[in-house]
């Protein structure tokens, strides 16, 4: 059987098929592999009682994550087995494998992805977090046009060195953009591969030169669209910092079901104590990215040297 080796978000991945999003790695070192396989025979059932589009349930020691029209992922701490829905090709399933399925796998290990995009500039790793639609990828795509380098889009995994700020591992070499956002930023969506069949989201490919190494995290900006005229940055201190970070764990809705509240508490506590956090309120209408850049730069100028 063929297999392919990848490095993604600091994880060693051994996959039974060739992935589309990441270049194969020739680094076989390290031991904590995640294996990703596709089940030989399809057991995909369609008679489940669903109360949401995608959901999670237990089957013995495994967790099953089910995506309507994509397939079912059987997840344990070291392995993801994909059972595809009829007529779904492996490339269509890839964003789910490297997104939600890997997010659940990490949770089983007591680790988490932050739901945020991280970018690097002038020795600062800066994460933009926020709910879906808050403008994480849009902000990052704009800043990249201004010369910032990408660390990770949408999901960011942290590495904790023995002392100091956490590092963010490099993620996928692309930024996910809605068609209208891509157009507004001067890209041609026609030339950008489409990421999902069901959504009009496209892949802005990022060259290796535009990617950063693992970056020390200096600040997290939580994007909050509001009915205001100009973007405003407010520092968040004390216990409030913890409370503001806690919801922005990737796929946080599964934490309780997986019984990982304690690990989540510890993760958010550690992060809140180590990193400066800011609320970035930005206008809902007329997302003025140059103005956002300006308030971000002002804030970074006030931070201690990384």
């Amino acid at each position, binding site marked *: 059987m063929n297999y392919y080796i990848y490095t993604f978000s600091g994880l060693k991945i051994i996959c039974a098929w060739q992935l589309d999003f990441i270049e194969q790695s020739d680094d076989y070192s390290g031991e904590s592999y995640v294996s990703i396989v596709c089940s030989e025979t399809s057991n995909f059932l369609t008679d489940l009682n669903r109360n949401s589009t995608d959901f999670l349930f237990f089957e013995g020691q495994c967790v099953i994550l089910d995506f309507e029209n994509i397939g079912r992922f059987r997840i344990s701490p070291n392995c993801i087995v994909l059972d595809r829905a009829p007529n779904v090709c492996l490339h269509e399933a890839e964003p789910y494998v490297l997104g939600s399925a890997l997010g659940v796998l990490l949770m089983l290990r007591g680790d988490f992805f932050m739901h945020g995009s991280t970018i690097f500039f002038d020795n600062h790793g800066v994460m933009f977090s926020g709910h879906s639609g808050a403008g994480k990828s849009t902000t990052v795509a704009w800043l990249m046009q201004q010369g910032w380098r990408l660390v990770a889009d949408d999901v960011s995994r942290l590495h904790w060195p023995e002392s100091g700020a956490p590092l963010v591992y490099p993620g996928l070499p692309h930024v996910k953009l809605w068609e209208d956002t891509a157009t507004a930023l001067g890209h041609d969506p026609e030339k950008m591969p489409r990421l999902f069949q069901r959504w009009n989201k496209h892949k802005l490919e990022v060259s290796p030169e535009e990617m950063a190494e693992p970056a020390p995290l200096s600040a997290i900006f939580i994007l909050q669209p509001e009915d205001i005229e100009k973007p405003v940055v407010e520092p968040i201190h004390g*216990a409030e910092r913890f409370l503001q970070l806690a919801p922005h764990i990737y796929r946080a809705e599964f934490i309780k079901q997986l019984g990982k509240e304690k690990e989540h*508490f510890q993760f958010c506590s550690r992060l809140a104590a180590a990193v400066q956090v800011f609320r970035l309120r930005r206008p809902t209408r007329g997302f003025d990215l140059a103005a956002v850049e300006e308030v971000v730069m002002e804030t970074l100028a006030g931070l201690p040297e990384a």
Partner: protein
Amino acid sequence: MSVPRYQTVPGILASKVEEEIILMSMEDDAYITLNPVASRIWELLESPRTLEELVALLMEEFEVGEEDCQRDVRDFLEDMSNRRLIREVEAV
């Protein structure tokens, strides 16, 4: 008459960000955030203390009148006991 002493319940998850403590109450499935004074009381209660001991220690550290301090500490102890985050231990 014996005077009760109080202590934090072992195993409660607590963390500190700047001067404020966050607690996780598994029972209520909720986070409880403490202001800097309440955070200090929580830290002091890592060892068993009486109400009077707490008031005396807090008055050294914070600018607060004895009457207000007593009332606030009593309310805090009652509230936290009801949430089962602190408990009475052996009396002195």
